[in-house]
Protein backbone atom coordinates (compact mmCIF):
# COMPACT_ATOMS: atom_id res chain seq x y z
CA UNK A 1 0.00 0.00 0.00
CA UNK A 2 3.03 2.27 0.12
CA UNK A 3 2.58 2.80 -3.62
CA UNK A 4 -0.87 4.21 -2.99
CA UNK A 5 0.58 6.59 -0.39
CA UNK A 6 3.24 7.81 -2.81
CA UNK A 7 0.53 8.22 -5.43
CA UNK A 8 -1.61 10.32 -3.12
CA UNK A 9 1.39 12.41 -2.15
CA UNK A 10 2.18 13.08 -5.81
CA UNK A 11 -1.40 13.66 -6.93
CA UNK A 12 -3.05 15.55 -4.07
CA UNK A 13 -1.37 18.98 -4.49
CA UNK A 14 -2.75 19.39 -8.00
CA UNK A 15 -6.05 17.80 -6.97
CA UNK A 16 -6.43 20.37 -4.19
CA UNK A 17 -5.80 23.27 -6.58
CA UNK A 18 -8.27 21.95 -9.16
CA UNK A 19 -11.01 21.13 -6.68
CA UNK A 20 -10.58 24.41 -4.79
CA UNK A 21 -10.14 26.73 -7.75
CA UNK A 22 -12.06 25.01 -10.54
CA UNK A 23 -14.60 22.35 -9.51
CA UNK A 24 -16.13 24.12 -6.50
CA UNK A 25 -16.32 27.54 -8.24
CA UNK A 26 -18.12 25.94 -11.20
CA UNK A 27 -20.59 24.14 -8.93
CA UNK A 28 -21.24 27.37 -7.01
CA UNK A 29 -22.25 29.01 -10.28
CA UNK A 30 -25.39 26.82 -10.30
CA UNK A 31 -27.29 28.36 -7.36
CA UNK A 32 -26.74 31.89 -8.72
CA UNK A 33 -28.32 30.97 -12.04
CA UNK A 34 -31.62 30.17 -10.29
CA UNK A 35 -31.76 33.42 -8.35
CA UNK A 36 -33.70 36.54 -9.16
CA UNK A 37 -31.95 39.70 -10.23
CA UNK A 38 -33.33 43.03 -9.10
CA UNK A 39 -31.96 46.00 -11.05
CA UNK A 40 -30.08 48.27 -8.69
CA UNK A 41 -30.31 45.91 -5.74
CA UNK A 42 -28.47 42.91 -7.14
CA UNK A 43 -29.32 39.31 -6.31
CA UNK A 44 -32.59 38.83 -4.40
CA UNK A 45 -31.74 36.67 -1.39
CA UNK A 46 -33.60 33.40 -1.00
CA UNK A 47 -35.38 33.71 -4.35
CA UNK A 48 -35.79 30.81 -6.77
CA UNK A 49 -36.64 31.23 -10.42
CA UNK A 50 -36.22 29.49 -13.76
CA UNK A 51 -36.62 32.84 -15.52
CA UNK A 52 -32.88 33.15 -16.32
CA UNK A 53 -32.97 29.92 -18.34
CA UNK A 54 -36.38 30.51 -19.92
CA UNK A 55 -35.21 33.90 -21.14
CA UNK A 56 -32.38 32.32 -23.16
CA UNK A 57 -34.85 30.59 -25.48
CA UNK A 58 -37.94 32.79 -25.07
CA UNK A 59 -36.50 36.32 -25.27
CA UNK A 60 -35.95 37.58 -28.83
CA UNK A 61 -32.65 39.28 -28.09
CA UNK A 62 -31.14 36.32 -26.24
CA UNK A 63 -32.37 33.90 -28.88
CA UNK A 64 -30.77 36.02 -31.59
CA UNK A 65 -27.44 35.94 -29.76
CA UNK A 66 -27.60 32.16 -29.20
CA UNK A 67 -28.56 31.45 -32.82
CA UNK A 68 -25.82 33.80 -34.05
CA UNK A 69 -23.23 32.06 -31.84
CA UNK A 70 -24.14 28.58 -33.05
CA UNK A 71 -24.42 29.78 -36.66
CA UNK A 72 -20.96 31.33 -36.45
CA UNK A 73 -19.72 28.03 -35.06
CA UNK A 74 -21.00 26.13 -38.08
CA UNK A 75 -19.84 28.74 -40.61
CA UNK A 76 -16.33 29.08 -39.15
CA UNK A 77 -15.97 25.29 -38.95
CA UNK A 78 -16.92 24.89 -42.63
CA UNK A 79 -14.59 27.71 -43.67
CA UNK A 80 -11.69 26.19 -41.72
CA UNK A 81 -12.37 22.79 -43.27
CA UNK A 82 -12.47 24.16 -46.84
CA UNK A 83 -9.36 26.32 -46.39
CA UNK A 84 -7.49 23.87 -44.18
CA UNK A 85 -7.78 20.70 -46.24
CA UNK A 86 -5.62 21.88 -49.18
CA UNK A 87 -2.94 23.10 -46.74
CA UNK A 88 -2.90 19.79 -44.84
CA UNK A 89 -2.82 17.90 -48.14
CA UNK A 90 0.14 19.94 -49.38
CA UNK A 91 2.01 19.40 -46.10
CA UNK A 92 1.54 15.63 -46.11
CA UNK A 93 1.56 14.77 -49.84
CA UNK A 94 3.61 17.65 -51.24
CA UNK A 95 7.35 18.01 -51.62
CA UNK A 96 8.91 16.75 -48.35
CA UNK A 97 11.41 19.61 -48.47
CA UNK A 98 8.60 22.13 -47.88
CA UNK A 99 7.06 20.19 -45.03
CA UNK A 100 8.89 21.72 -42.09
CA UNK A 101 8.61 25.29 -43.36
CA UNK A 102 4.89 24.95 -44.09
CA UNK A 103 4.23 23.29 -40.72
CA UNK A 104 6.05 26.09 -38.90
CA UNK A 105 4.15 28.73 -40.86
CA UNK A 106 0.92 27.09 -39.69
CA UNK A 107 2.08 26.78 -36.06
CA UNK A 108 3.46 30.32 -35.87
CA UNK A 109 0.09 32.16 -35.89
CA UNK A 110 -1.15 29.62 -33.34
CA UNK A 111 1.66 30.49 -30.93
CA UNK A 112 1.22 34.22 -31.47
CA UNK A 113 -0.81 36.17 -28.93
CA UNK A 114 -4.51 36.02 -29.77
CA UNK A 115 -4.97 39.71 -28.98
CA UNK A 116 -2.19 40.60 -31.43
CA UNK A 117 -3.78 38.55 -34.22
CA UNK A 118 -7.16 40.17 -33.65
CA UNK A 119 -5.53 43.60 -33.54
CA UNK A 120 -3.94 42.88 -36.92
CA UNK A 121 -7.40 42.34 -38.39
CA UNK A 122 -8.62 45.60 -36.85
CA UNK A 123 -5.81 47.49 -38.64
CA UNK A 124 -6.88 45.78 -41.86
CA UNK A 125 -10.66 46.00 -41.61
CA UNK A 126 -11.47 49.24 -39.80
CA UNK A 127 -13.17 52.11 -41.67
CA UNK A 128 -9.89 53.88 -42.41
CA UNK A 129 -8.05 50.58 -42.45
CA UNK A 130 -5.69 49.04 -44.98
CA UNK A 131 -8.32 47.20 -47.01
CA UNK A 132 -10.68 50.17 -47.35
CA UNK A 133 -7.83 52.60 -48.16
CA UNK A 134 -6.50 50.25 -50.80
CA UNK A 135 -9.91 49.79 -52.41
CA UNK A 136 -10.56 53.55 -52.42
CA UNK A 137 -7.10 54.29 -53.89
CA UNK A 138 -7.71 51.72 -56.60
CA UNK A 139 -11.05 53.35 -57.34
CA UNK A 140 -13.04 50.19 -56.63
CA UNK A 141 -15.22 51.88 -54.01
CA UNK A 142 -15.92 55.47 -53.04
CA UNK A 143 -17.04 55.17 -49.43
CA UNK A 144 -15.46 52.74 -46.97
CA UNK A 145 -17.07 49.31 -46.69
CA UNK A 146 -18.27 48.24 -43.25
CA UNK A 147 -15.97 45.29 -42.62
CA UNK A 148 -15.96 45.35 -38.83
CA UNK A 149 -18.50 45.28 -36.01
CA UNK A 150 -20.53 42.85 -38.13
CA UNK A 151 -20.56 39.26 -39.37
CA UNK A 152 -17.81 39.84 -41.96
CA UNK A 153 -15.20 40.94 -39.44
CA UNK A 154 -15.97 38.34 -36.79
CA UNK A 155 -16.12 35.56 -39.39
CA UNK A 156 -12.75 36.51 -40.96
CA UNK A 157 -11.08 36.86 -37.55
CA UNK A 158 -12.39 33.60 -36.10
CA UNK A 159 -11.60 31.62 -39.25
CA UNK A 160 -8.05 32.97 -39.23
CA UNK A 161 -7.57 32.13 -35.57
CA UNK A 162 -8.90 28.56 -35.59
CA UNK A 163 -7.63 27.49 -39.01
CA UNK A 164 -4.26 26.22 -37.66
CA UNK A 165 -6.05 23.81 -35.29
CA UNK A 166 -7.97 22.35 -38.22
CA UNK A 167 -4.85 22.04 -40.39
CA UNK A 168 -2.94 20.22 -37.64
CA UNK A 169 -5.83 17.77 -37.06
CA UNK A 170 -6.11 17.10 -40.80
CA UNK A 171 -2.34 16.62 -41.13
CA UNK A 172 -2.49 13.95 -38.42
CA UNK A 173 -5.41 12.25 -40.21
CA UNK A 174 -3.77 12.38 -43.65
CA UNK A 175 -0.56 10.91 -42.29
CA UNK A 176 -2.54 7.81 -41.35
CA UNK A 177 -3.75 7.27 -44.92
CA UNK A 178 -1.36 4.81 -46.58
CA UNK A 179 -0.03 6.19 -49.86
CA UNK A 180 -0.37 2.72 -51.41
CA UNK A 181 -4.15 2.76 -51.11
CA UNK A 182 -4.37 5.98 -53.10
CA UNK A 183 -1.87 4.72 -55.63
CA UNK A 184 -3.75 1.45 -55.98
CA UNK A 185 -6.98 3.30 -56.75
CA UNK A 186 -5.19 5.47 -59.27
CA UNK A 187 -3.55 2.45 -60.90
CA UNK A 188 -6.95 0.85 -61.27
CA UNK A 189 -8.00 3.81 -63.37
CA UNK A 190 -9.61 6.24 -60.93
CA UNK A 191 -9.32 9.91 -61.72
CA UNK A 192 -7.57 12.18 -59.25
CA UNK A 193 -10.90 13.57 -58.02
CA UNK A 194 -12.37 10.11 -57.71
CA UNK A 195 -9.40 8.85 -55.69
CA UNK A 196 -9.91 11.77 -53.35
CA UNK A 197 -13.67 11.24 -53.02
CA UNK A 198 -13.63 7.47 -52.73
CA UNK A 199 -10.41 6.86 -50.79
CA UNK A 200 -8.75 9.86 -49.16
CA UNK A 201 -11.85 11.67 -47.91
CA UNK A 202 -13.50 8.66 -46.17
CA UNK A 203 -10.19 7.61 -44.62
CA UNK A 204 -9.66 11.07 -43.15
CA UNK A 205 -13.26 11.37 -41.89
CA UNK A 206 -12.29 10.79 -38.23
CA UNK A 207 -9.78 13.66 -38.47
CA UNK A 208 -12.33 15.88 -40.22
CA UNK A 209 -14.84 15.25 -37.46
CA UNK A 210 -12.31 15.73 -34.66
CA UNK A 211 -11.05 18.99 -36.21
CA UNK A 212 -14.60 20.25 -36.83
CA UNK A 213 -15.67 19.58 -33.26
CA UNK A 214 -12.59 21.32 -31.90
CA UNK A 215 -13.10 24.40 -34.08
CA UNK A 216 -16.85 24.52 -33.39
CA UNK A 217 -16.39 24.33 -29.61
CA UNK A 218 -13.60 26.94 -29.67
CA UNK A 219 -15.65 29.28 -31.86
CA UNK A 220 -18.81 29.25 -29.74
CA UNK A 221 -16.77 29.92 -26.57
CA UNK A 222 -14.59 32.68 -28.07
CA UNK A 223 -14.61 36.04 -26.28
CA UNK A 224 -11.60 38.06 -27.44
CA UNK A 225 -11.98 38.02 -31.23
CA UNK A 226 -15.79 38.54 -31.28
CA UNK A 227 -15.42 41.51 -28.93
CA UNK A 228 -12.45 43.09 -30.74
CA UNK A 229 -13.89 42.62 -34.25
CA UNK A 230 -17.59 42.60 -33.40
CA UNK A 231 -17.55 45.52 -31.01
CA UNK A 232 -20.05 46.04 -28.19
CA UNK A 233 -23.10 45.73 -30.45
CA UNK A 234 -22.49 42.53 -32.41
CA UNK A 235 -22.87 40.14 -29.45
CA UNK A 236 -22.19 36.42 -29.13
CA UNK A 237 -22.79 34.30 -26.03
CA UNK A 238 -19.32 34.82 -24.53
CA UNK A 239 -19.39 38.60 -24.99
CA UNK A 240 -22.92 38.76 -23.56
CA UNK A 241 -21.74 36.82 -20.48
CA UNK A 242 -18.87 39.29 -20.16
CA UNK A 243 -21.21 42.29 -20.33
CA UNK A 244 -23.71 40.78 -17.91
CA UNK A 245 -20.99 40.25 -15.32
CA UNK A 246 -18.92 43.37 -15.83
CA UNK A 247 -21.32 46.02 -17.09
CA UNK A 248 -24.90 45.08 -16.18
CA UNK A 249 -23.85 43.24 -13.00
CA UNK A 250 -26.73 40.81 -13.70
CA UNK A 251 -24.93 37.75 -12.34
CA UNK A 252 -27.97 35.41 -12.33
CA UNK A 253 -28.53 35.92 -16.07
CA UNK A 254 -24.83 35.69 -16.76
CA UNK A 255 -24.42 32.45 -14.85
CA UNK A 256 -27.45 30.85 -16.55
CA UNK A 257 -25.92 31.76 -19.92
CA UNK A 258 -22.52 30.45 -18.75
CA UNK A 259 -24.04 27.16 -17.73
CA UNK A 260 -25.86 26.79 -21.03
CA UNK A 261 -22.66 27.50 -22.97
CA UNK A 262 -20.64 25.03 -20.89
CA UNK A 263 -23.38 22.41 -21.23
CA UNK A 264 -23.40 22.70 -25.04
CA UNK A 265 -19.62 22.27 -25.25
CA UNK A 266 -19.58 19.34 -22.81
CA UNK A 267 -22.42 17.59 -24.65
CA UNK A 268 -20.72 18.00 -28.02
CA UNK A 269 -17.38 16.73 -26.75
CA UNK A 270 -19.03 13.84 -24.92
CA UNK A 271 -21.00 12.77 -27.99
CA UNK A 272 -17.96 12.98 -30.23
CA UNK A 273 -15.81 10.93 -27.87
CA UNK A 274 -18.53 8.26 -27.75
CA UNK A 275 -18.67 8.32 -31.53
CA UNK A 276 -14.91 7.91 -31.94
CA UNK A 277 -14.87 5.10 -29.39
CA UNK A 278 -17.58 3.28 -31.34
CA UNK A 279 -15.62 3.74 -34.56
CA UNK A 280 -12.44 2.51 -32.95
CA UNK A 281 -14.37 -0.55 -31.81
CA UNK A 282 -15.49 -1.26 -35.36
CA UNK A 283 -12.05 -0.95 -36.90
Amino acid at each position, binding site marked *: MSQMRTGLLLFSPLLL*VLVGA*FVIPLILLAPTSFQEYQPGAGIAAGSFTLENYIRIVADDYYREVVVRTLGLGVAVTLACLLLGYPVAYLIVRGNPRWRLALTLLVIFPLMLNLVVRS*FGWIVLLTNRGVVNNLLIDLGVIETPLKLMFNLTGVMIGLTHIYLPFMVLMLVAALQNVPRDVESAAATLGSSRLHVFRAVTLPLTAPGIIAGSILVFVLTISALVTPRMLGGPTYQVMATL*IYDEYMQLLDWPSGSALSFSLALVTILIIWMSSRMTKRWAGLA
Partner: protein
Amino acid sequence: MIEQRPGLSITTIALLVVIFLQIPVIIVVLASFSETSYLTIPPQGWTLKWFEAVFTSSNYLAAIKNSLILAVGATVISLVLGVAASYALFRKMLPGSEALTSLLMSPLIIPSVVIGVALLQYFTLVGLRGGFLVLLIAHVVITVPYIVRSALASLSGIDLSVEEAARCLGANGFTTFRLMTLPLIKPGLVAGALFSFVTSMENVPVTIFLAGPRETTLPILIFTSVEMGVDPSVAAVSTILIIATVAVLFVAERWTGFHRFV
Protein backbone atom coordinates in the same frame (compact mmCIF):
# COMPACT_ATOMS: atom_id res chain seq x y z
CA MET B 1 2.74 2.89 -59.43
CA ILE B 2 1.00 6.23 -59.81
CA GLU B 3 2.12 8.71 -57.15
CA GLN B 4 -0.62 10.95 -55.82
CA ARG B 5 0.81 14.43 -55.62
CA PRO B 6 -1.08 17.66 -55.05
CA GLY B 7 -1.80 19.33 -58.39
CA LEU B 8 -1.03 22.93 -59.31
CA SER B 9 -4.45 24.26 -58.28
CA ILE B 10 -4.37 22.59 -54.86
CA THR B 11 -0.83 23.84 -54.29
CA THR B 12 -1.80 27.39 -55.26
CA ILE B 13 -4.85 27.42 -52.99
CA ALA B 14 -2.85 25.96 -50.09
CA LEU B 15 -0.07 28.53 -50.47
CA LEU B 16 -2.62 31.38 -50.61
CA VAL B 17 -4.18 30.09 -47.38
CA VAL B 18 -0.75 29.93 -45.71
CA ILE B 19 -0.17 33.56 -46.81
CA PHE B 20 -3.64 34.48 -45.44
CA LEU B 21 -2.46 33.09 -42.10
CA GLN B 22 0.50 35.51 -42.05
CA ILE B 23 -1.34 38.65 -43.26
CA PRO B 24 -2.29 40.20 -39.89
CA VAL B 25 1.24 39.60 -38.63
CA ILE B 26 2.81 41.40 -41.59
CA ILE B 27 0.30 44.25 -41.28
CA VAL B 28 0.99 44.73 -37.57
CA VAL B 29 4.75 44.89 -38.15
CA LEU B 30 4.32 47.43 -40.99
CA ALA B 31 1.95 49.54 -38.87
CA SER B 32 4.39 49.64 -35.97
CA PHE B 33 7.14 51.24 -38.12
CA SER B 34 4.83 53.49 -40.10
CA GLU B 35 4.92 57.28 -39.67
CA THR B 36 1.18 57.83 -39.98
CA SER B 37 -1.14 56.72 -37.22
CA TYR B 38 -3.29 54.93 -39.79
CA LEU B 39 -1.37 52.44 -41.88
CA THR B 40 -1.38 52.99 -45.63
CA ILE B 41 -0.01 50.68 -48.31
CA PRO B 42 2.73 51.54 -49.14
CA PRO B 43 3.56 53.14 -45.75
CA GLN B 44 4.39 56.87 -45.87
CA GLY B 45 7.65 57.21 -43.99
CA TRP B 46 9.28 55.08 -41.31
CA THR B 47 9.67 55.78 -37.62
CA LEU B 48 10.60 54.19 -34.31
CA LYS B 49 8.51 56.63 -32.27
CA TRP B 50 5.80 54.06 -31.46
CA PHE B 51 8.42 51.78 -29.93
CA GLU B 52 9.75 54.70 -27.94
CA ALA B 53 6.18 55.29 -26.72
CA VAL B 54 6.01 51.69 -25.50
CA PHE B 55 9.34 51.74 -23.70
CA THR B 56 8.62 55.04 -21.97
CA SER B 57 5.08 54.12 -20.92
CA SER B 58 4.86 52.93 -17.35
CA ASN B 59 1.54 51.23 -18.20
CA TYR B 60 3.08 49.05 -20.89
CA LEU B 61 6.19 48.24 -18.87
CA ALA B 62 4.14 47.26 -15.82
CA ALA B 63 1.82 45.11 -17.95
CA ILE B 64 4.74 43.37 -19.65
CA LYS B 65 6.31 42.69 -16.26
CA ASN B 66 3.03 41.35 -14.81
CA SER B 67 2.49 39.09 -17.82
CA LEU B 68 6.00 37.64 -17.67
CA ILE B 69 5.94 37.00 -13.92
CA LEU B 70 2.50 35.44 -14.17
CA ALA B 71 3.37 33.23 -17.15
CA VAL B 72 6.67 32.04 -15.68
CA GLY B 73 5.17 31.51 -12.23
CA ALA B 74 2.12 29.61 -13.49
CA THR B 75 4.24 27.46 -15.80
CA VAL B 76 6.73 26.51 -13.07
CA ILE B 77 3.95 25.60 -10.61
CA SER B 78 2.04 23.72 -13.31
CA LEU B 79 5.20 21.82 -14.25
CA VAL B 80 5.89 20.69 -10.69
CA LEU B 81 2.28 19.80 -9.81
CA GLY B 82 1.43 18.47 -13.27
CA VAL B 83 4.44 16.20 -13.69
CA ALA B 84 4.02 14.78 -10.18
CA ALA B 85 0.34 14.04 -10.78
CA SER B 86 0.99 12.61 -14.25
CA TYR B 87 3.68 10.33 -12.88
CA ALA B 88 1.26 8.96 -10.26
CA LEU B 89 -1.29 8.34 -13.03
CA PHE B 90 1.26 6.75 -15.34
CA ARG B 91 2.54 4.32 -12.71
CA LYS B 92 -1.10 3.46 -11.85
CA MET B 93 -0.51 4.35 -8.20
CA LEU B 94 -4.13 5.43 -7.74
CA PRO B 95 -7.43 3.75 -8.58
CA GLY B 96 -9.64 5.28 -11.26
CA SER B 97 -6.77 6.84 -13.19
CA GLU B 98 -8.91 7.35 -16.28
CA ALA B 99 -11.42 9.51 -14.42
CA LEU B 100 -8.60 11.40 -12.69
CA THR B 101 -6.97 12.11 -16.07
CA SER B 102 -10.28 13.52 -17.36
CA LEU B 103 -10.47 15.76 -14.30
CA LEU B 104 -6.98 17.16 -14.96
CA MET B 105 -7.85 17.83 -18.62
CA SER B 106 -11.31 19.29 -17.96
CA PRO B 107 -10.23 22.98 -17.80
CA LEU B 108 -9.68 22.63 -21.57
CA ILE B 109 -13.30 21.61 -22.15
CA ILE B 110 -15.06 24.31 -20.12
CA PRO B 111 -15.13 27.63 -22.02
CA SER B 112 -12.55 30.02 -20.52
CA VAL B 113 -15.11 32.77 -20.06
CA VAL B 114 -17.17 30.40 -17.87
CA ILE B 115 -14.10 29.57 -15.76
CA GLY B 116 -13.52 33.33 -15.51
CA VAL B 117 -16.98 34.20 -14.17
CA ALA B 118 -17.03 31.15 -11.86
CA LEU B 119 -13.74 32.24 -10.31
CA LEU B 120 -14.84 35.88 -10.09
CA GLN B 121 -17.95 34.87 -8.16
CA TYR B 122 -16.09 32.35 -5.98
CA PHE B 123 -13.23 34.63 -5.00
CA THR B 124 -15.70 37.44 -4.29
CA LEU B 125 -17.64 35.05 -2.07
CA VAL B 126 -14.59 33.99 -0.05
CA GLY B 127 -13.33 37.58 0.07
CA LEU B 128 -10.17 37.02 -1.97
CA ARG B 129 -10.98 39.31 -4.88
CA GLY B 130 -8.06 40.96 -6.63
CA GLY B 131 -4.43 40.34 -5.91
CA PHE B 132 -1.69 38.48 -7.68
CA LEU B 133 -2.14 35.15 -5.86
CA VAL B 134 -5.69 34.70 -7.17
CA LEU B 135 -4.47 35.29 -10.73
CA LEU B 136 -1.60 32.85 -10.26
CA ILE B 137 -3.91 30.07 -9.05
CA ALA B 138 -6.32 30.71 -11.94
CA HIS B 139 -3.47 30.53 -14.45
CA VAL B 140 -2.25 27.25 -12.97
CA VAL B 141 -5.76 25.83 -13.54
CA ILE B 142 -5.82 26.85 -17.22
CA THR B 143 -2.20 25.90 -18.02
CA VAL B 144 -1.85 22.59 -16.19
CA PRO B 145 -3.75 20.51 -18.82
CA TYR B 146 -1.02 21.28 -21.37
CA ILE B 147 1.67 20.03 -18.99
CA VAL B 148 -0.32 16.91 -18.08
CA ARG B 149 -1.02 16.15 -21.73
CA SER B 150 2.62 16.36 -22.77
CA ALA B 151 3.85 14.59 -19.62
CA LEU B 152 1.48 11.64 -20.09
CA ALA B 153 2.31 11.40 -23.80
CA SER B 154 6.06 11.43 -23.11
CA LEU B 155 5.81 8.99 -20.19
CA SER B 156 3.84 6.49 -22.27
CA GLY B 157 6.84 6.27 -24.62
CA ILE B 158 9.18 5.17 -21.84
CA ASP B 159 10.33 1.60 -21.46
CA LEU B 160 9.51 0.67 -17.86
CA SER B 161 12.45 -1.75 -17.70
CA VAL B 162 14.79 1.26 -17.72
CA GLU B 163 13.32 2.37 -14.41
CA GLU B 164 13.38 -1.16 -13.05
CA ALA B 165 17.06 -1.49 -13.96
CA ALA B 166 17.85 1.70 -12.05
CA ARG B 167 15.88 0.46 -9.05
CA CYS B 168 17.74 -2.88 -9.15
CA LEU B 169 21.03 -1.01 -9.08
CA GLY B 170 19.93 0.58 -5.79
CA ALA B 171 18.52 3.97 -6.82
CA ASN B 172 15.50 5.11 -4.81
CA GLY B 173 12.26 6.27 -6.41
CA PHE B 174 13.15 9.94 -6.65
CA THR B 175 16.71 9.36 -7.87
CA THR B 176 15.40 7.01 -10.55
CA PHE B 177 12.90 9.63 -11.67
CA ARG B 178 15.45 12.45 -11.66
CA LEU B 179 18.27 10.63 -13.41
CA MET B 180 16.43 8.23 -15.72
CA THR B 181 12.83 9.28 -16.35
CA LEU B 182 13.09 13.06 -16.35
CA PRO B 183 15.79 13.29 -19.06
CA LEU B 184 13.73 10.95 -21.25
CA ILE B 185 10.57 13.05 -21.04
CA LYS B 186 12.34 16.42 -21.15
CA PRO B 187 11.70 17.28 -24.83
CA GLY B 188 7.98 16.68 -24.37
CA LEU B 189 7.94 18.73 -21.18
CA VAL B 190 9.72 21.64 -22.89
CA ALA B 191 6.97 21.65 -25.53
CA GLY B 192 4.29 21.41 -22.83
CA ALA B 193 5.87 24.23 -20.84
CA LEU B 194 5.97 26.38 -23.96
CA PHE B 195 2.26 25.82 -24.56
CA SER B 196 1.58 26.60 -20.92
CA PHE B 197 3.61 29.82 -21.12
CA VAL B 198 1.88 30.93 -24.31
CA THR B 199 -1.56 30.10 -22.87
CA SER B 200 -0.92 32.17 -19.74
CA MET B 201 0.70 34.97 -21.74
CA GLU B 202 -2.30 35.43 -24.05
CA ASN B 203 -5.16 34.74 -21.67
CA VAL B 204 -7.92 37.33 -21.58
CA PRO B 205 -11.19 35.52 -20.73
CA VAL B 206 -10.09 34.40 -17.25
CA THR B 207 -7.68 37.21 -16.39
CA ILE B 208 -10.04 40.07 -17.21
CA PHE B 209 -12.49 39.00 -14.48
CA LEU B 210 -9.81 38.64 -11.80
CA ALA B 211 -7.10 41.24 -12.40
CA GLY B 212 -7.29 44.47 -10.46
CA PRO B 213 -5.82 47.66 -11.97
CA ARG B 214 -2.40 46.83 -10.50
CA GLU B 215 -2.34 43.34 -11.99
CA THR B 216 -3.20 44.36 -15.57
CA THR B 217 -1.46 42.04 -18.03
CA LEU B 218 -0.31 42.89 -21.54
CA PRO B 219 -3.19 41.18 -23.43
CA ILE B 220 -5.71 42.86 -21.10
CA LEU B 221 -4.10 46.24 -21.75
CA ILE B 222 -4.24 45.73 -25.53
CA PHE B 223 -7.78 44.31 -25.35
CA THR B 224 -9.14 47.28 -23.42
CA SER B 225 -7.15 49.95 -25.27
CA VAL B 226 -8.41 49.00 -28.76
CA GLU B 227 -11.90 49.94 -27.60
CA MET B 228 -10.66 53.54 -27.82
CA GLY B 229 -9.54 53.01 -31.44
CA VAL B 230 -6.39 51.98 -33.28
CA ASP B 231 -3.29 53.20 -31.48
CA PRO B 232 0.06 52.58 -33.25
CA SER B 233 1.77 51.93 -29.92
CA VAL B 234 -0.38 48.79 -29.72
CA ALA B 235 1.15 47.80 -33.07
CA ALA B 236 4.62 48.43 -31.65
CA VAL B 237 4.09 46.30 -28.55
CA SER B 238 2.51 43.65 -30.80
CA THR B 239 5.61 43.65 -32.99
CA ILE B 240 7.72 43.06 -29.90
CA LEU B 241 5.51 40.06 -29.09
CA ILE B 242 5.78 38.80 -32.68
CA ILE B 243 9.58 38.96 -32.58
CA ALA B 244 9.60 37.19 -29.21
CA THR B 245 7.29 34.47 -30.56
CA VAL B 246 9.46 33.88 -33.65
CA ALA B 247 12.56 33.68 -31.46
CA VAL B 248 10.99 31.25 -29.00
CA LEU B 249 9.58 29.07 -31.79
CA PHE B 250 12.98 29.02 -33.50
CA VAL B 251 14.83 28.04 -30.32
CA ALA B 252 12.19 25.43 -29.41
CA GLU B 253 12.36 23.91 -32.90
CA ARG B 254 16.17 23.71 -32.76
CA TRP B 255 16.13 22.37 -29.23
CA THR B 256 13.37 19.79 -29.27
CA GLY B 257 12.01 19.53 -32.81
CA PHE B 258 8.99 21.37 -31.49
CA HIS B 259 6.65 20.80 -34.47
CA ARG B 260 6.47 17.08 -33.59
CA PHE B 261 4.70 17.92 -30.33
CA VAL B 262 1.95 20.14 -31.65
